[in-house]
């Protein structure tokens, strides 16, 4: 076959197969759109329900006053969620303050040490991520509440740390490992100590991805009920004392769902909306933050 004949043959084959390829491309595009819709419809329906039912609760009064027990004469008098917002802020803030440094230090250690030990820790953490969160609730309850006979807001924070630290660490480790070796070598070749290279070259280069993991973990933790339910007690007063008892948005929702009054169950929509907006807010914040970090 001459070169020209070969070219002709290839062009004809290509043209013939193009129609089939274009068709299968369209078919698969259609399948993807359908898959997208299947994924999107439940999501949209949840969103519509939560916003539709919850929006009427979003008032200054609801957000700032504490919960009240409805009475026979005023079955709708459930007050607001001010105490739960305060509790959420305290429990989550302490959890974040503990878990961020712990996770970053752990990730740095795992990055530097390498070897079989690290593989074991990593596997353990990945298993932790997969565990149902109630396991951490029971563990914290047995090890803290049962031994001290007390409920504290910070017990809840510790329980949340079990959820956040593995997610953050695994993410941060992946972020550190994504830093090109050439950067590390450039640092070492300047005579920098490995610790300097870590703090001044690797960590800054990886920070955007590290923070993505932090926000991801936080978003997960903020909506958790099971790990904190047994350990923080409950508080109908808005308090920011970590060693006091506390109610958080998810635990309030839980107690309202099993509550006796329809007005309480109805108010769960409002709490759900507040939770959703909180998570959304932090996700948007993290996107902006990551975009900024990457630009600079």
């Amino acid at each position, binding site marked *: 076959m001459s070169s020209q004949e*070969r070219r002709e*043959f*290839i062009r004809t*084959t*290509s043209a013939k*197969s193009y129609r089939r390829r*274009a068709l299968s491309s369209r078919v698969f595009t259609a399948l993807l759109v359908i898959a997208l819709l299947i994924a999107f419809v439940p999501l949209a329906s949840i969103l519509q329900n939560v916003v539709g039912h919850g929006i009427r609760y979003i008032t200054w009064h609801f957000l700032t006053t504490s919960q009240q027990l409805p009475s026979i004469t005023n079955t709708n008098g459930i007050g607001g969620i001010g105490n739960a917002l305060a509790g959420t802020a305290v429990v989550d803030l302490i959890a974040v303050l503990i878990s961020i440094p712990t996770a970053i230090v752990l990730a740095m250690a795992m990055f530097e040490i390498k070897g079989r030990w690290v593989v074991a820790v990593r596997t353990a953490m990945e298993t932790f991520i997969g565990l149902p969160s109630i396991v951490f609730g029971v563990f914290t309850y047995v090890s803290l509440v049962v031994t001290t006979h007390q409920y504290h807001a910070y017990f809840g924070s510790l329980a949340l740390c079990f959820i956040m630290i593995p997610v953050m660490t695994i993410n941060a480790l992946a972020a550190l490992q994504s830093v090109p070796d050439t950067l590390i070598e450039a640092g070492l070749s300047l005579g920098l100590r490995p610790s300097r290279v870590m703090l001044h070259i690797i960590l800054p280069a990886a920070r955007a991805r590290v923070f993505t993991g932090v926000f991801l973990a936080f978003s997960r933790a903020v909506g958790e009920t099971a790990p904190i339910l047994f350990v923080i007690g409950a508080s109908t007063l808005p308090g920011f004392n970590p060693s006091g008892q506390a109610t958080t948005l998810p635990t309030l929702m839980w107690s309202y769902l099993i509550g006796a009054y329809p007005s309480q169950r109805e108010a769960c929509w409002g709490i759900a909306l507040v939770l959703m907006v909180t998570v959304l807010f932090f996700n948007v914040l993290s996107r902006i933050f990551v975009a900024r970090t990457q630009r600079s």
Partner: protein
Amino acid sequence: MDTAETRDNVTLGEGSSDAVLSLRDVSVLFNNKAAVRNATFDVQANKVTSLIGPSGSGKTTLLRAMNRLHELTPGATVTGQILLEGEDLYRTSVPITVLRSRIGMVFQRPNPFPTMSIYDNAVAGLRFIGVKDKDFLEESAHKALSEAALWDSVKDRLKAPAATLSGGEQQRLCIARAMAVEPEVLLMDEPTASLDPVATKQIEELVTVLKQFVTIVIVTHNMQQANRVSDNCAFLLMAEDRTGELIEFDTTEKIFNDPKDSRTLDYTLGRFG
């Protein structure tokens, strides 16, 4: 190294009949900011056309516009015309995937498909196009690998992973992969940038042989390389506003020995860049 005889017969500029690829007033813009502006020249059949110029002059951008690869960058647009045998690449009804199979490309770093064998790499384009005939595929692999001067060293290990080859061999495999679909034009973006001098020399020799089968456009940082391998040469330079401009297009001999523009002379003499 003197191919002056062939160069003397070259007719340049608009309207030359043997142009495979014609650029007419081509500008490439990213988010409405021009990266290259108003380039007009003809790429002649079975000749090597080199694009030279300092960094930022838009050589690679222009090259990537020739098979619409630059469209992968969001916000990229092209104005003017790029004609492949008279057909405007940007206004044709022919699908982009079909067009690209007629204009092959070789990149700065060898990029054989890592999970495929040498043989599978060589015939990858044909298989994707829909060629199933085993004999045809084998013949194509033989032909393409021979054209890429790789056949003799790989014929006994065609089933070995492509990653087992050296850098220079990998690049020649990429050339074979591009040649196997019998393109009309082969675009080469600094194909020797990551290779040692010996491998570079082999690729250069290959380029001068390959032009009997395919029209070649090559971007190079290396002026000696442009001088050695190309018949025609486009010299680009970054203007004050940081946009690349075509300063001069002529036979390589003219560009290097008797350029019209003093900036071309300064560059080819190594006074800057």
